[in-house]
């Protein structure tokens, strides 16, 4: 019964996890106050013979207090969330000179296209690998996400990456892994009867390892 977030392995995962814990603490406090309050009232004000309830229609002061406090906390949370969101998703935040790959989803596989030796996509030396995503650690990577048929969702839990792949659109996703290892892409959007098994392997290499893998794959494809 392990209910924890998987260890984070990306730069953007750091603020995401921080926000998650902040919200967990804030909602945790509200949760305890509300639930404990309800239980306390149930005990303290339980009906008894001869008791009479206090007659009141409310209190404007209390209404103002419990409107203002949640509003302020939520506004602050909104502003902070907005900043983090912009740093991940806004076009301005996309890294320049990053390794750019193309991932095309289709029922029920992920096809990853790498640029060849020229480092440019959509040229003759590109090569495509099915269900294998290889990326270097500690370097920004941009994935151009497309879909051939229905909507899929590109989800790598350890990298805190999720983006729907929509047919007819090319959606850029970027991330920077901070460690190496073997993981999975999981499809997070219901895409048909094979949705549950639409996974692909993700290998995060050290930079040099990645380059030698890339070179060897490129050669194989070129032959």
């Amino acid at each position, binding site marked *: *019964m392990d*209910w924890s*977030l*998987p260890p984070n392995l990306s730069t953007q995962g750091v603020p995401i996890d921080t*926000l*998650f814990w902040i*919200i967990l603490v804030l909602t945790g406090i*509200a949760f305890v106050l*509300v*639930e404990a309050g*309800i239980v306390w*009232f*149930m005990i303290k*004000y*339980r*009906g008894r013979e001869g*008791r009479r*309830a*206090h*007659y*009141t*229609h*409310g209190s404007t002061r*209390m*209404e103002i207090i*419990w*409107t203002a406090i949640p509003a302020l906390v*939520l*506004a602050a*949370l*909104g502003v902070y*969330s*907005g900043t983090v*969101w*912009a740093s*991940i*998703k*806004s076009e301005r935040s996309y890294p320049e000179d990053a390794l750019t790959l193309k991932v095309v989803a289709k029922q029920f596989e992920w096809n990853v296209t790498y640029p060849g030796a020229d480092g440019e996509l959509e040229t003759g030396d590109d090569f495509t690998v099915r269900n294998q995503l290889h990326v270097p650690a500690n370097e920004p990577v941009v994935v151009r996400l497309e879909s051939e*048929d*229905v*909507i899929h*969702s590109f989800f790598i*839990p*350890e990298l*805190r990456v*999720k983006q*729907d792949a929509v*047919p*007819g*659109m090319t*959606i850029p996703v970027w991330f920077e892994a901070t460690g190496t290892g073997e*993981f999975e892409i999981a*499809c*997070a*959007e*219901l*895409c048909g*009867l094979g*949705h*549950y098994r639409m996974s692909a392997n993700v290998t995060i290499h050290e930079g040099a390892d990645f380059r030698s893998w890339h070179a060897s794959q490129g050669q194989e494809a070129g032959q």
Partner: protein
Amino acid sequence: MATIVAEATGQAILHEEHRQSFLRKYIFSTDHKVIAIQFLFTTLFFLMIGGLLAMLMRYQIAWPDQPLPGGGILPETMVASGYILPEFYNSLVTMHGSIMVFFAIMPMLVGVYANYLIPLQIGARDMAFPRLNMLSFWLMVPAGLLTLASFFVIGGAAAAGWTLYAPLSGRPDLSGVHLGQQMWLVSLVIIGLSSILGSVNYITTVINMRAPGMTWFRLPLTVWALFITAILGLLAMPVLSAAGIMLLFDQTIGTSFFLPEAGGQPLLWQHLFWFFGHPEVYILILPAMGFTSEIIAAGSRKPIFGYKAMVWAIAAIAFLGFIVWGHHMFQSGMNPTLGLSFTISTLLIAVPSAIKTFNWMGTMWRGNLQFHTPMLFAIGFVAMFAIGGLSGIFMASTPVDIYIHDTYFIVAHIHYVLFGGSLFALFGAIYYWYPKMFGRMMNETLGKIHFVLTLVFFNLVFFPMHGLGMVGMMRRIYDPTGYQHLQGIQDTNQLITWAAFGLYASGFLFAFNFFWSLWRGRKAEANPWDATTLEWQTPSPPKHGNWKEIPVVYHGPHEFSHPDVPDKDWLAQNERPDITSPAESVMQPEPR
């Protein structure tokens, strides 16, 4: 308008005079109370079906490698050599959500209780348009039959999720579902029409048919909630119906509204769906909030704390409900800048929900709490809805949503709102208004056992799902065991499934109590809860036409423990206290 209303009520009174045939009285009835009871039986049936689908899903998730016991009775297209097929699983996911939303919870909140309570609580003899009301029920029947039948056509029932995301929903070649999807869309358009007709009726009735003295701010909160819900329904349902017809055209006559090959746009579907879908969420919770307010006031023997704040909170939720739809689409490929504005509107909508929660607690504060079954479910609603509200904040925060979107965290959230919220309140409402509907009380002991079992099993099912979401378990997957990151959670999935079986079983205890009490329940007096609103001031059950004389209203809806009435702790809305001067509190009755 006025003449139509007068004619309709006139007819209702006439009906009382002559003897009606069985068919006119119980089947094709125009009496709002009979129609409400018809809706109640129908929706309870669909609640049972929707729950059964969930049980099959839960079995598959917990034990994907074991054959379904008794699965042999299902056709080979659903369960082959004992195993649930992935395509059938997708139909289960889709139809569980669709049936629960459109055929169980929504018509139970609105079809049953708007119908039953609006005329009785505002002091009217019937709805403004009784025949339209009958039509609204009789549209639901073919829609429901069509939905159930879709399981048995070639290709099975719809399998693209209750959200019907295009292009999966629009391309039979990719979903494997041909006729089933189309039947569901036709059914959706019909049930939408039923809902629109209902809304028109409720709005007209509340505006035009309030009893003398029933000013807007003397309306019970249930009526306020149902009135605003009807406005939401009237504005949101046509969008879904239009989108549904467009999707049907994409499949049948070759249009491409949502199919990208010929220039359509899949995201357009999501915008249209959620433009309906988010107000829909509030259609599913506002009436529940109304019932809860009513029951908590009566159970605490206190006026509702902050009545006007409660009304404004409902209105604020309804308004904001129309500008938050994009929060379902943060990861959809929609322009990320839009995400920011939807975050802000979404966080804003948490404020009126918080106000309501605090006001319910304020109502309990210094009360004289009566723990009857309806009160227990109403308190349960507040406690569970609070969890659902708080978990929503995680999703509203766009960066966190990147991770938890489309995981079981969302499944936990929606069920804390729809089950812990809406259904808890509905159970409370059924126990509370049962004596008025059927003239008998439900059994209290069984009711309390039902409450405890429901509370315990509900939390055992849905609380751990937050944990599954944190681990990263995706929604709607037929078999979680194939994934590396989901290896450590199968025991949680099995625990959830056992608890789900318990939850479903406790529903049958409720069903037993419900049907047994119809014949064997203790006879109910007119006002078994010593409550103040008008429906309790007429016999249980009320006769056709509801009142001997239309009541006159002198004060607000929840005058409990009024200091000027020392001999009892409640003052009915139509009771004239000696201390109030009628000149200042009575609205001039309109001539009818």
